[in-house]
């Protein structure tokens, strides 16, 4: 077998998978998005832009997604970074593994159960009840953007911690000693050595979390209670409830486009951040 043939053989399973599980469904969705809704729901072939013209009706879902997904990503990153730093730099080898496992443990429980727990904590008999006891009345937490953000941070934290942890753990600790040896205070060492060298981990974590958040529907469904909903919830609604497949497909295609555009912009920014460091002058 030639090298070329072997390369193809290596790629065959993945290619087949992508064709059947990605290209095919996306093509179907794309075709459906130009169709019409049948009388009893479902799809009737057609070629019309009517579905796309109707998109503004779902503006709220897009707005929520576009605000809360980046916000949740940044919030998760800000919380994950110190945690990852602590685990990678300040924890002895003995404890590292155990503490890492503790970070993943929540992943072993269904997100459904974990979100229900938050419904109780944020709901009427949870934190608001405690606040009432100390005289603060009328606080509503559940079914607000706040509740959804909390749920997002909680659910996606481990996913953010891991890539950042890996980049910090791989960082040669002698570089930190070298920096200190050259007269940099601890904070200066962090800003000039640790942070720049962990950017790849941060970038990966943010990308992972952001992409998954763009398609999220469970957390808003449970903690947003129909008041704070994402595009994902709109899709569930359109496909499963109102059975308007054509319109649902148009919303889905739009979501994919929005996601591709944001990820492209994001990658450009990260690349810029990396090259900029290359020709930064002496300051």
């Amino acid at each position, binding site marked *: 077998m030639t090298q070329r043939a072997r390369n193809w053989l290596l790629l065959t399973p993945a290619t087949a998978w992508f064709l059947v599980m990605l290209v095919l469904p996306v093509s179907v969705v794309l075709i459906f998005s130009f169709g019409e809704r049948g009388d009893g729901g479902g799809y009737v072939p057609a070629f019309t832009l009517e579905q796309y013209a109707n998109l503004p009706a779902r503006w709220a879902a897009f707005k929520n997604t576009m605000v809360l997904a980046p916000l949740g990503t940044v919030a998760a990153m800000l919380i994950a970074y110190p945690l990852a730093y602590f685990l990678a730099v300040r924890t002895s080898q003995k404890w590292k593994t155990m503490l890492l496992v503790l970070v993943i443990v929540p992943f072993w429980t269904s997100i459904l159960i974990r979100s229900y727990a938050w419904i109780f904590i944020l709901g009427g008999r949870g934190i608001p009840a405690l606040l009432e006891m100390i005289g603060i009345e009328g606080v509503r937490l559940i079914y607000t953007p706040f509740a959804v953000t909390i749920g997002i941070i909680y659910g996606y934290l481990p996913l953010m911690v891991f890539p950042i942890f890996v980049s910090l753990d791989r960082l*040669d600790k*002698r*570089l930190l*000693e*070298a*920096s*200190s*040896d*050259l*007269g*940099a*205070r*601890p904070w*200066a060492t962090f800003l*000039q*050595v640790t942070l*720049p*060298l962990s950017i790849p981990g941060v970038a990966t974590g943010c990308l992972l979390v952001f992409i998954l958040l763009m398609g999220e529907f469970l957390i808003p469904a449970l903690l947003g209670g129909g008041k704070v909903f994402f595009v994902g919830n709109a899709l569930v609604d359109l496909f499963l409830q109102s059975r308007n497949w054509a319109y649902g497909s148009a919303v889905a295609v739009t979501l994919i486009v929005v996601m591709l555009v944001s990820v492209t912009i994001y990658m450009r920014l990260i690349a810029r951040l990396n090259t900029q*460091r*290359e*020709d*930064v*002058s*002496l*300051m």
Partner: protein
Amino acid sequence: MKDNGYLDDRSRAGLHPIAELRGVSKRFGDVLAADNLDLSISSGEFLSFLGPSGCGKTTALRMLAGFETPTSGEVLIDDQVVNDLEAHRRPVNMVFQSYALFPHLTVEQNIGYGLRQQRPRLGKDTIREKVGQALDVVRLSGFEKRRIWEMSGGQQQRVALARAIVNQPKLLLLDEPLAALDRKLRKEMQIELQDLQRQIGITFVLVTHDQEEALSLSDRVCVMGEGRIIQIGTPQELYDSPRSRYVADFVGTSNFFEGRVTASGAGRATVVLKNGMPVEGRVTAEAAPAGEACVSVRPEQIRLSRSDRTGIEVVVHNRIFLGEHTEYLVRNGTLGDFLVLSPRQSELNDGPFNTGETAWASWEAGSAVVLEKS
């Protein structure tokens, strides 16, 4: 500027010590990595720590740099006790064994790193100028904008050196800076290091387990073993007058003949070897050994002869031609194997010797050293 030897006299004369270790010990759990170290480093000298792997050389260096705190004892820099002074506040810079260059910065940014940390801030132009000078010194001008991974091992080593010297530290610590280089490059860099030290006049403390490197570069060598300082001295002192078998063995190559001391006094002792032959030698330790002892003789101090039938009768067992010298492994029935290094000149007179040939080995009385048995 200094000559070899010149500085030693100056330092003996009480030149100001730039750094001192006073009864410094460092314990890692069960391991005593540094055991009661006493050492005074003179301003401007080139000092080496020499010893086998794990004997605590790096630990000693790291305590000077401020990365480890001594378990007991005092570290002084410029007459100040600095035990609790963090590394970034010490006027000391280190060249790490693996260089530890910043991969995300250019050559120029790496070298300027220490200067950029200074407060009050240095101007951009000042920094650029000093970096330029440092690059000149290590002969890397023109490489300013290169990334670290675009540099060869030897070049990286020089960047690491420049990054440290640009700050004009009072003390430059070098932890096996040449260990990763191939032999030829290492030789070149050794010469560069020595030139550099003379040029900039900074005190160098070098860690190495390469005795040749330590002997050729240093004003003084500090031989270490199992966390302790075994002997400190100029390379010549260590080579000619080792005070223990450990030093004689570690610094250069030596032959050891065991025997019993029969007489001693006035810095000399007589040892009767196992074959009954009495040998006289110098006593270098504070007290002459009594009872069991060993005599150390350097291979190049032994002369092989066919005609002059004095000394130890041996059979030539192996011969290695080394150009300037020929190395013989010779064997005596009772004393065992030992090495003889004959210079070419004497080879012309009375040699060369063939394998299996019988010869007589002898040395000048002054060249043997009488040491404790172990």
